[in-house]
């Protein structure tokens, strides 16, 4: 038992609740939220190191022993993602001060933002499949509010689609969970894993796993990404960044969790399917990114491509590939947040998302320009920046497991990703200057500090890979050997 595991969930939740009482006092809400998120970052960091020192930490809620009660489990993967989430949440929260506008701030923007962070962190920390569904709902309902708050016409149009798609996939999620409960009689992930290992993964269970893959595939934008490019471009930039960084990643986390812990007995069916879905996602994602001239659309398609890359690391199902996937996952969360925040700054200056109408921004905004450049090449994976190590390990894993074709697709897509983001840089920042100082629609006051913070973290993630590696190695160990997870959750002594 370790109550520390619940603290990163409770802090943003409490802060969100308290903010509701101060709805009229925007400055107070900002303070409450910032302090809470800084607290969450510190606690998550402490939790990460405790997991590193003492192994997996669990908390049996209400003192009910698993598999009967609900457990929260912080293994290395969960702890890493919790820390990343809280850091990105903090940066986007501060970015929101100058960019969301007073109307939204007066109408529950900050409380809902904090509830979203609560839901994401809780999804990472739960050890129970039904509870995972509940946490998904917490974050989804918050995201419904964030996507529609403000009520502009495109927002309402896109939020309608977004909500419908997610409600349908949530319904499938419950159906899948119900089937799984009917077959196995448990929803505790460790217990599920043990029981399925005992009776063998029968054909029905494999079908169920693919059913759940469809659900998480919609949430993670793995192949089923049709809803993403439209809906991610309508909310304000701080919300875009938090969506891009966190929401699809929760789906990816769920896929990683269930296909390493629960359904890992038939890799020739499930993981092969994952590999091809990943390949298609990468290809279609980069095609979308290359074809577009709209900054937000290019970045949105880049989210899709990155999902493919991470899932391919999982699908190769080797320790190297998984390490790569985790490295790349955290890198991608940070870098997507940065890119969307920087794009938000670009758009607030130029007042357009069309690249053809931008140009020469670097003359007046050199810091913005160079930060975008660093983020762009980090995304593409130029050494020594953060994308490189993850991609290298994923490629290595792909070659080890003889997925030559898909590895080739990955390399090709990386090249096209580089092209698509450099296109933004060259057309947006270089070239003929289209706007003089006076013609600019907005300024970047207060927007660059959070971006710089995230860029620094991204650089550290690449340059400091040597220090980070032991953490990733430990996370991978738990993923490749489910018995470690099972023993800590169910308290089985050797």
């Amino acid at each position: 038992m370790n109550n520390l595991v619940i603290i990163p969930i409770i802090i943003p939740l409490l802060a969100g609740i308290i903010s509701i009482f101060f709805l009229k006092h925007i400055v107070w809400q900002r303070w409450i939220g910032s302090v809470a998120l800084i607290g969450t970052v510190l606690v998550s960091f402490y939790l990460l190191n405790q997991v590193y020192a003492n192994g997996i930490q669990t908390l049996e809620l209400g003192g009910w022993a698993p598999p009967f009660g609900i457990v929260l489990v912080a293994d290395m993967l969960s702890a890493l993602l919790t820390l990343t989430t809280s850091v990105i949440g903090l940066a986007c929260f501060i970015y929101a001060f100058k960019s969301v506008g007073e109307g939204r701030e007066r109408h529950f923007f900050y409380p809902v933002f904090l509830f979203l962070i609560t839901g994401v962190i809780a999804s990472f920390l739960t050890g129970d499949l039904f509870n995972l569904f509940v946490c998904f709902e917490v974050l989804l309902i918050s995201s419904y509010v964030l996507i529609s708050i403000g009520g502009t016409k495109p927002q309402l149009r896109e939020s309608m689609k977004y909500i419908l798609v997610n409600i349908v996939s949530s319904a499938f999620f419950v159906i899948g969970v119900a089937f799984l409960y009917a077959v196995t009689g448990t929803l505790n992930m460790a217990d599920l894993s043990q029981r399925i290992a005992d009776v063998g993964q029968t054909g029905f269970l494999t079908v169920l796993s693919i059913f759940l893959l469809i659900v998480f595939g919609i949430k993670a934008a793995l192949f089923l990404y049709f809803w993403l490019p439209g809906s991610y471009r309508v909310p304000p930039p701080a919300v875009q960044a938090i969506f891009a960084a966190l929401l699809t990643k929760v789906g990816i986390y769920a896929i990683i969790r269930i296909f390493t812990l629960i359904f890992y007995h038939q890799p020739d069916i499930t993981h092969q399917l994952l590999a091809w879905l990943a390949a298609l996602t990468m290809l279609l994602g980069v095609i979308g990114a290359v074809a577009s001239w709209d900054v937000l659309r290019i970045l949105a398609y880049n989210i899709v491509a990155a999902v493919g890359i991470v899932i391919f690391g999982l699908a190769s199902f080797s320790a190297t590939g998984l390490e790569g996937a985790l490295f790349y996952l955290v890198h991608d969360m940070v870098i997507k947040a940065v890119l969307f925040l920087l794009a938000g700054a670009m758009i607030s200056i130029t007042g357009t998302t069309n690249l053809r109408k931008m140009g020469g921004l670097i003359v007046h905004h050199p810091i913005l320009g160079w930060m975008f450049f660093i983020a762009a090449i980090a995304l593409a994976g130029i050494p020594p920046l953060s994308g490189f190590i993850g991609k290298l390990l994923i490629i290595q894993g792909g070659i080890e497991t003889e997925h030559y074709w898909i590895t080739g697709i990955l390399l090709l897509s990386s090249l096209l990703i580089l092209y698509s983001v450099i296109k933004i840089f060259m057309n947006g920042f270089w070239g003929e200057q289209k706007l003089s100082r006076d013609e600019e629609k907005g300024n970047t006051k207060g927007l660059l500090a959070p971006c710089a913070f995230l860029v620094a973290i991204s650089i550290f993630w690449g340059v400091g890979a040597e220090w980070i590696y032991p953490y990733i190695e430990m996370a991978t160990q738990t993923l490749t050997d489910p018995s470690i997870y099972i023993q800590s959750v169910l308290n089985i002594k050797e």
Partner: protein
Amino acid sequence: MRINDVILQTTAKVISFIILTFGIYIFFAGHHIPGGGFIGGLITTSALVLLYVAFDMETMNKVIPIDFKKMTALGLLIAVSTGLGALLFDQPFLTHTFGYFDLPILGEAELATAVLFDIGVFLTVTGVAVTIILTIGEDEKWK
């Protein structure tokens, strides 16, 4: 056109109090037999909504000057705090306890901390349900 709502208003005054009492009964019954904060909250909501239907919004806002959104937040705060209370005694989050006490009039009674949590649920459910119904009913452009 003004509808004649004398009968509705007169009965609503009586019935809503019966429903309110029933809601509170269900709330306390929920500790050992079916019932509890969630269903108690919904029953209370139905009493309030009946009053809102019988009388108009302005009158009701004068009679019950409560911001139901704040009520929801208060409920959440109570529920989370009772969970956190367990941390003070070094128990897992949400652990609850109970005991038997001699109360002045009632005699020996069972008091449980889970009831405090349930009060939070009660307030949250009532707050959310009333807010939802009022938000739908509030829009004046549809007259």
